[in-house]
Each structure stands twice: as structure tokens, then as C-alpha cells.
């Protein structure tokens, strides 16, 4: 396909992104298949033409790993897809994942000049297109580097750990990746649902690729319990350790009734569904139980994922309950949009105060209070204040708490000499180096719950720092 000058000129003026075809909302709430289908080649090239190839490309500033955005888009314009994916992978190990889950509207795309008048270039969709193109063709394996004779243990197989492990293996180090669960991927596996990130088609292939680089993946090992970090050095002969254990500790509201039957943490709700495939019960053994009316507390990605999952599990009415207004909702724009299209009902400026149980201990309602926005709080967002006397009762049978996750204390508790941050995070410098020699950390365990691309970026930076460190031994 080659486009004539006229068409290209027209495309350069096009104010809106090329839409990405997706499953009809009425159909898709009945299945767990991926919602958007992705661009075909023709649409991808056309969308790429909307990029002006700015000399001083602002978009790059918005990408935490500094992907050469104009560079890879130019290669799409020229239909050099193989080179395009190479360009992308210089900075981003998991483009198939990032193209799907990055909050582009607040990162790369928010800086794109085309966004000043109309919509920005669909950078994320183009990234996804190249990654899927490569996956369909079969991923090329880089040449095996000369072995360095150094051993590195990577703890946790989320985006931070996977990236660090892959990069370290490519530098010639012997890498063992330890994962507590029986499956790899971290939040990408147990948190983000199938309909947003297909597990076999996308995630597993990224993991297989990392394994093909020579990374020895050991599931069912809880570091701190099965083996401690100190033992990794003293008994297992590792020269360095990277900790990428994420922020997996669910927060609860601390309101009465939270331990009733039918109240889930989002982690439990999503883990049962995604990792344990409860939506395939009884083919898969793990059950999940849902009432007809479901309330999800929170408005981040985790809450949207829980709400949309509840619909697909057969709930008739799903409510988001959020104490601030729509402007403060932290979820990706696309997730909120998809949730609305699918019929999720948004109850903003509403805060739960009590969960009410029936005589058998099952949830039968949730008492909430209306809120209004007051002065900004320390996060800079307007502080929600309860409106006296505005209490009312939601009649729901299932409540999912999705108000955030904190770092799991297991490793900090069992590792000597690790300096911690205020909220239980592990302190690390810009290279990922912790207070203990040879121990590096990155991702949510350092930043608190953040994003996939930041975790990946941290894994990448730490891999380079670990490589330098190993060179000094």
C-alpha cells in the first residue's frame, strides 16, 4: 500500500485519531475476550501519517522510558514494520503490554502537538500495532551474549522483574527469576483482566520470550519465606538481587461490616477471576460468588477492572462509588469510557460508611453519605467533605473494595538492613540501588502503586546499574 501525496496531505489535517474497531458493548459484556481489535496495517500507516515528525518532539518527554516516538512512527509511515519494532524495543521491552495499558492520555499523547487542535496521534495504538505484528510473525531472539559468570536473583515477575531479568540475561548474566505465585506476570496476570490484556496471546508470549533469553523462572517460591534475601547471597551464591515485589497489600475502608460475606478486596476478586479463572468454574475449580447488584468502591484502573469484570460474571447492575468528582478519577480515560459504554453506573461524591448484613451475614446493603468538594488536601486534590444528613442506603449484595494497595511487608520484614520509606516502600536511589550493597529494587515496591511502564522503566535502569555493579566485583 502506498499513499499518494494528496491523501497524505489530507491525513496530516485529520483532527481525530483513526478509531480502533472494538467489540460491541452489548456483546462484550457477555465474554472475556479483548475489547479493542487493534489497527490493521492500512489504518496504522494512515494514523502514522498524522504525525508531523516534530524536530523537538514533545511526546517523548511524556514517555517514562523515552521511546523514540517520531522514530518508530516514521518507520510505520514507511511501512518498515520490522525496523519499527526494533526501534520501539530499544527502550520498551513489553510494547504489546504498554500499547494496551499505558495511560497515554496523561503520558506520551498528552504532550503531542496534534493534541492542541483535535486529538493527539494514537501513539499507544501504533505501539500495539507493531507489537502485535511482531508477535504474529514470531519474535526474533537476539544472539546469546558471552557469559559474565555472575548470578543475579530477580524477585517478583511483574513488569519490573520481567524487564530487569530480560535485560540482565541479555548482558550475559545468569538470571534466576523467583515468583511467589504459580504463574508469572504479577499484576499483568492476576490483576488486569483478560479482556484488556489477553493472557495466552500476549502476556504468556512476552514471558516465554524472557525465558528464551535464558532466564531461569522458578514459580512457587516466596522470598522471605521459602528462601530469604540474605540466603540468596550467603547460600545460593547470587552476586546481586533485584526486588520487584510490587504493591500487593490490599487496603480496606475500615468501616463496620467489611468482613461480611460478599465483601471482596479487588485483589481477591480479580485474582479469583484472572489468575484462578473463576469465570470458567466449574471447568476450573476456583469459585467466585456475585449478587445481582454490585458496588465497587474506588475509581482507579483497579476499580474499573473490577466493575467491568463483575458485569462479565453476570451482575445485572454495577455501581462505581467514589468519594471525589469525575475530574479526580485516577483510571485511564479509555477504561472509564469503556465502563460507561458497558453500563457501569457512576456514583460520584459518595462515600461508604457502613456495610449492612442480612441475618446470615451476607451483604444486603451499603450505607453511603454524599460528599462535596472542599479545600485542596496534601495531594493537591480538592478534599471531599461529607454533607451532614445525606446518608442513604444502596441495596447491593456484593461489595468490591478497590481503594488502593500498599507494598507487601514480607521482604522488608525478613531482610536485614533495608531502609524503608514512610509507607512501607523500599528506599532506592535513581539507579534502583537500596541501602544495602548488591540489593536493588524497582517498581511499585519502591514507588507505591503506580504504572506498568514506570515499573518497567525502573527494571531497565536497575539492570544497567546492576551490570555496572557486577563489573566492580
Amino acid at each position: 500500500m502506498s499513499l499518494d501525496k494528496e491523501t497524505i496531505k489530507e491525513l496530516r489535517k485529520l483532527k481525530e485519531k483513526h478509531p480502533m474497531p472494538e467489540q460491541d458493548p452489548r456483546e462484550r459484556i457477555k465474554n472475556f475476550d479483548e475489547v479493542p481489535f487493534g489497527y490493521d496495517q492500512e489504518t496504522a500507516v494512515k494514523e502514522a501519517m498524522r504525525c508531523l515528525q516534530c524536530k523537538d518532539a514533545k511526546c517523548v518527554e511524556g514517555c517514562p522510558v523515552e521511546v523514540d516516538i517520531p522514530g518508530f512512527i516514521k518507520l510505520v509511515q514507511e511501512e518498515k514494520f520490522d525496523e519499527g519494532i526494533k526501534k520501539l524495543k530499544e527502550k520498551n521491552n513489553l510494547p504489546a503490554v504498554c500499547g494496551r495499558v499505558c495511560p497515554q492520555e496523561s503520558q506520551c499523547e498528552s504532550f503531542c502537538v496534534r493534541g492542541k487542535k483535535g486529538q493527539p496521534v494514537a501513539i499507544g495504538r501504533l505501539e500495539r500495532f507493531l507489537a502485535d505484528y511482531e508477535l504474529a510473525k514470531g519474535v526474533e531472539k537476539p544472539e546469546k551474549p558471552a557469559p559474565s559468570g555472575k548470578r543475579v536473583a530477580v524477585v517478583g515477575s511483574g513488569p519490573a522483574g520481567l524487564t530487569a531479568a530480560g535485560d540482565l540475561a541479555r548482558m550475559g548474566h545468569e538470571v534466576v527469576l523467583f515468583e511467589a505465585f504459580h504463574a508469572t506476570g504479577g499484576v499483568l496476570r492476576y490483576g488486569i483482566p483478560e479482556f484488556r490484556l489477553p493472557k495466552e496471546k500476549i502476556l504468556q508470549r512476552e514471558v516465554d520470550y524472557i525465558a528464551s533469553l535464558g532466564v531461569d523462572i522458578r514459580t512457587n517460591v516466596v522470598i522471605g519465606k521459602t528462601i530469604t534475601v540474605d540466603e540468596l547471597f550467603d547460600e545460593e551464591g547470587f552476586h546481586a538481587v533485584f526486588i520487584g515485589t510490587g504493591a500487593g497489600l490490599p487496603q480496606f475502608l475500615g468501616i463496620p461490616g467489611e468482613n461480611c460475606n460478599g465483601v471482596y478486596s479487588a485483589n481477591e476478586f480479580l485474582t479469583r477471576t484472572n489468575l484462578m479463572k473463576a469465570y470458567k468454574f466449574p471447568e476450573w475449580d476456583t469459585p467466585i460468588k456475585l449478587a445481582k447488584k454490585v458496588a465497587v468502591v474506588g475509581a482507579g484502573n483497579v476499580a474499573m477492572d473490577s466493575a467491568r469484570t463483575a458485569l462479565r460474571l453476570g451482575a445485572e447492575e454495577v455501581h462505581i462509588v467514589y468519594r471525589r468528582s469525575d475530574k479526580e478519577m485516577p483510571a485511564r480515560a479509555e477504561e472509564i469510557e469503556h465502563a460507561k459504554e458497558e453500563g457501569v453506573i457512576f456514583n460520584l461524591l459518595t462515600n461508604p460508611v457502613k456495610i449492612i448484613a442480612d441475618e446470615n451475614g451476607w451483604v444486603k446493603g451499603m450505607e453511603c453519605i454524599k460528599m462535596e468538594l472542599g479545600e485542596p488536601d496534601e495531594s493537591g486534590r480538592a478534599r471531599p467533605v461529607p454533607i451532614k444528613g445525606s446518608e442513604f442506603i444502596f441495596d447491593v449484595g456484593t461489595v468490591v473494595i478497590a481503594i488502593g494497595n500498599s507494598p507487601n511487608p514480607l521482604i522488608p520484614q525478613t531482610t536485614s538492613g533495608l531502609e524503608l520509606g514512610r509507607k512501607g516502600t523500599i528506599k532506592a536511589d535513581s539507579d534502583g540501588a537500596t541501602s544495602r550493597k548488591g540489593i536493588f529494587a524497582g517498581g511499585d515496591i519502591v514507588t507505591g502503586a503506580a504504572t506498568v511502564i514506570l515499573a518497567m522503566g525502573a527494571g531497565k535502569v536497575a539492570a544497567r546499574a546492576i551490570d555496572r555493579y557486577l563489573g566492580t566485583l
Partner: protein
Amino acid sequence: MFKIVTKKVLSEVNKLMEIEAPLVARKAQPGQFIILRVRENGERIPLTIADSDKEKGTITIIFQEIGKTTKELGTLEVGEYLSDFVGPLGRPMELPSPPGRVVAIGGGVGIAPVYPKVKAFHDAGMEVISIIGARTADLLILEDEMRAVSNELHICTDDGTKGHHGFVSDILQKMLDDKSQKIDEIIAVGPLPMMRVIANQTRPYGVKTLVSLNPIMVDGTGMCGCCRVSVGGETKFSCVDGPVFDAHQVDFDELTRRSRTYLDEEKIALEKFEHNCRCGGGK
């Protein structure tokens, strides 16, 4: 993959298996548990570490076949493999200091998890009085093992087919009333109703009483909150804060309700499993 190296049928419903899991065996301590999956699409279930052998690199589990997963586990034979086996999880049990006189109570399959604790007390030089009970004599497990590590062993059966005709709590009551012999600590493991009875029974005497709880779990590492229990009015995650807790502080009503969450689904899973077995449809 984790190999089954020994299998023993202890009673009609109780089986013992030794599983090859050298990393777990190296670390296992009394009071801790493992989580296993029988196969790829199986459920994760927690079982207490009944014994461990560092040299052989094995963990012993003893389970009661009550539902789909435990029944399926029971069909596996020596030489076959479990797809997943992770541990040791939970906090190790603390020994009372200074060592004194302990009463250990095991009810039904609860005898299995109480055994490693009794052994640890015994090895630490404490005096241990054990009381074990079951519905009927055939369901009594680990009698010889328990006797070997206890200073005194009392047996009860609900139907009187062996030992005292009645409940473990009857025997405990006599000990509580015997003012000449001080009890420093009581540990009780068994079905929820038994643990609740014992908690209520010892509360007025002010004797420290511990129970090992068995709520439903998923990950076993503090990540899902499924195993939460109210202890002294605070929410605790059994898998990381327990599973052993002060019996007098546990909200047994809540725990009992929560453990019934999936009764309907458990029935469906079991029926499907038994149907497949009968038709020879495999696993």
C-alpha cells in the same frame, strides 16, 4: 512439579502423603502450612505441615477428604506429581517461655496439625498432656505418633468406640477443675465448632488458649485478604498474621459464616468430580 514419595491411608477419610519439596523442607517449622494445587486448573488449598525431613527434602501432609480438591488429591499415587506446592507459609508457633505444662487438643483431622506442635513442645522439654478425639474409632489418626511425644494421651470418641465416650472438652473440663495441676497453655486444633467450645470453656479460667484457624485462602502471602478474621476487634490476615491466634479474641461467628461462602459451589464441584469418576471420565 512436586513428587509424591509416600502415601498412607490413615482412615476411611484421612490420608497422609510425603511430598518432595526440598526448599520448603529446609525451612518448615511447627505451626506453618503449605498451599498446593493438584493440577493446572485446580484450586489452591492450604494444608498444615504435619512433619518435615530436611535430609530427605520432604514435607508430610495429612488431609481429610471433604470436598473436590482433597478427594482428588486422595486419588493420586506414589510417583505422581502435584503441579504446585508453596511454603512454608504463616508464622511458626512460639514456644511458651518459660517452658511449662501444656494441654494439646486435636479433633478429627485437627490431630494432624496439632501433632507437629506437640512434637515441638516435647522436644523443648515441656510436659504435654494430649487429648485427641474423633467421631468414631476408625477416624482416629496418629495415635501412636501422638503418644510418643506426649506425657499423657487421652482419647475420646463421640460414639464411644474407643476411649472416653464423649467430647474432648469433657476431659479438658476435669483438668481445668483440678486445681492441683496448673496449665500454662492450651492449644486446640480441630473443626470450628470444637475450637469455639474450647475457647468459651477456658475463658472463665483465664488460661491462655491458642487455636490454629482454617479460613478460606487464595494466595497465602497477604495479598488478597480472603483469609481475614477479626481477632480482638481487629482485622487480621490468617495467612501472614496467623494461622495461630488467641482463642479468646477470635470472632468465631464471623469465621464460621465466612467459611460457608462457597457451599453451593463446593457442592457443584464435588458432584462434577464424582460424576466424572463414576463415568471413568478421568480427572
